[in-house]
């Protein structure tokens, strides 16, 4: 009775298949676990909380629109307190205990660098919010840079200075990882634009007295004084320049002017200072107006660049996973590096190792107590003021 046997086998096959699919179907309804550790308490928490909120807003929106691969996303989050070794332990826990399906990045370059080896060993894709480029040289192929490269931060400033015919730059660099790489970027960009770096000196992060350094930089009579700085040192340099009457046509700093405390602490001395940002709420990028409105509605504050890059990275992550159609990390990785998509921050485009090529930076200037985006021109909210008026 071969036909009977065939029929029986076929019937058994159908039953087995339907059992399997129903099992798979039941499993599909369980939420996708999305894990991260980020600094929720301690001195480094304020920018990190903007990032966390950016992530959470994106996840909310994805869930409301039906979830990812038809499943809701559940966030598993921990607090690393700004400590790299805690971050490593927590990512270990996310990978082994919680067995999360997808990973997001912590805040700060050194924390990302600390967790990079274990994330990569576990072969989990992680869109990373670290601007320094060393970790995207092919060593950790599962890290996707989702923030502007450090070396490009001052690009719009140099571009604007060159367009005004300024020739010489004095560069003051804080002697730590991020500003150093940023300073190297300034030197390279200046060379491209035919400008000359006539003074280039670094200082330790603990420096509070900038008087001799600024005096020396000023003696070179540079057209532009650029600081590869954070907030306190940017303020220290501006104070020293004003108090010692050191003049230049343009003053620009990397991090510093982007913070509201820059103006609050310096008052009129902050007028006409240039800074850079990776994002501005007025940007005419895709979906930005909606993002700003949604963020403001949910958190009662305007998003800053941390919130925007985090939001954009989660959105892109969702799109890539949808395109792949599964949680296969290898496939997600291969699809990720092919991304060339507009986001609220700008065009998201990676090289084959996951280095960010698309994201740019924007120049802002403090004018009459307001931060205005002044360069590139097509995104400007106000006309720039140059040259810098003499100190009074």
């Amino acid at each position, binding site marked *: 009775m071969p036909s009977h046997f065939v029929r029986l086998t076929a019937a058994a096959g159908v039953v087995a298949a339907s059992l399997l699919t129903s099992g798979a179907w039941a499993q599909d309804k369980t939420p996708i676990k999305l894990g991260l550790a980020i600094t929720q308490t301690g001195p480094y928490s304020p920018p990190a909380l903007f990032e966390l909120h950016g992530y959470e807003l994106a996840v909310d929106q994805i869930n409301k629109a039906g979830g990812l691969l038809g499943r809701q996303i559940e966030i598993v989050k921990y607090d690393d307190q700004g400590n790299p070794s805690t971050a490593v332990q927590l990512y270990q826990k996310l990978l082994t205990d919680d067995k999360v399906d997808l990973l997001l990045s912590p805040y700060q370059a050194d924390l990302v660098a600390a967790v990079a080896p274990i994330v990569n060993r576990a072969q989990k894709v992680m869109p990373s919010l670290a601007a320094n480029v060393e970790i995207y040289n092919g060593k950790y192929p599962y890290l996707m840079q989702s923030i502007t490269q450090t070396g490009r931060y001052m690009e719009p400033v140099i571009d604007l200075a060159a367009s005004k015919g300024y020739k010489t730059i004095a560069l003051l660099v804080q002697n730590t990882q991020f500003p150093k790489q940023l300073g190297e970027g300034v030197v390279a960009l200046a060379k491209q634009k035919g400008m000359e770096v006539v003074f280039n000196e670094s200082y330790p992060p603990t420096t509070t007295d900038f008087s001799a350094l600024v*005096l020396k930089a000023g003696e070179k009579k540079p057209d532009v004084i650029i600081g590869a700085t954070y907030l306190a040192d940017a303020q220290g340099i501006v104070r020293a320049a004003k108090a*010692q009457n050191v003049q230049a046509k343009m003053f620009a700093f990397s991090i510093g002017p982007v913070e509201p405390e820059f103006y609050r602490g310096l008052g009129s001395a902050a007028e006409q200072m240039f800074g850079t940002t990776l994002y501005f709420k007025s940007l005419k990028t895709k979906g930005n107006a909606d993002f700003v409105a949604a963020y403001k509605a949910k958190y009662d504050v305007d998003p800053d660049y941390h919130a925007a890059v985090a939001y954009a990275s989660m959105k892109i992550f969702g799109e890539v996973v949808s395109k792949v159609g599964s949680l296969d990390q290898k496939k997600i990785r291969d699809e990720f590096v092919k991304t060339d998509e507009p986001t609220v921050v700008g065009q998201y485009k990676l090289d084959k190792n996951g280095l960010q090529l698309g994201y740019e930076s924007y120049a802002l200037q403090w004018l009459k107590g307001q931060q205005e985006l002044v360069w590139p021109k097509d995104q400007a909210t106000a006309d720039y003021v140059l040259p810098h008026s003499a100190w009074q």
Partner: protein
Amino acid sequence: MTTFVTLIILGLLWGGVYLLAAEGLNLIYGVMKVVNLAHGDFIVFGGLLAFSLYGFIGINPLLSFPVTAIVLLAIGAVVQFGILERIGLDRGDAELRTLLATFGLSYVVANTSFLLWGSQFQSIPFLQGFVRAGPIAIPQALLVCSVLAFAVAILVHIWLNYTMLGKSVRAVAQSGLGAASCGLDIVRIRMLAFGIGSAMAGSAGALLISLIPFQTSSGGELTVQAFTLIALGGLGNYAGAFLAAELLGLVEVMVQYYLGTNAASAVIYIVFIGVLIFRPYGLLGRAVRV
């Protein structure tokens, strides 16, 4: 030549700023032999308090520093009476005990500041211009901080050496038991001494925050700086602290200009080690204190 003169002036003025930051620590050590490891956090607390007074009421540091001084005076007195007085100041291991207590206190003060003001750097836009002296521009804020630092140093010197209360503070420093047996209320006098030292930290903070941005975690660095300075001058010695401050200010500015800013912090500690090798008790310190 103009540059050289400018550097000398800047160095001397920054010396005054460092002196201002160290005077409270020096007083407390000098009269009580307590190294207050929360000193820097007191400075930051005073500074951020002045920042709020400026932001909310609009009063500038020259008007608010007496306020921060009074607040810190009260805090200092409570710390002395409530903590240090309870852990055995007259015992042999008193220095170690007070070190541990003030170390813990530094965390309490820093985290209180964090809860009140958050972690961002803050400062006050005040006296940012310069005074012109021929071809030289002298920074206003530096000038004011230095003059006040010297004024405070002189006032404390007069208080300790020429007033009854100051003399009793020194008597308690010399021997608590001896002072008590002469009828001095040593608990009250220690409260006063620690309170005044803390008040000096608080007022220094109010002035310094218009020159150096503070965040709540800046305290540790300030304590180390201040301690280096008073150790260099001879712990508890006022003229020594003055000399040390000027030496550090000049060395820093000169090395910054001629050798680079990275070299400056190294050279300062080389000078520090050199002085301590040849004069273990500091520039003007003596083997037997006060």
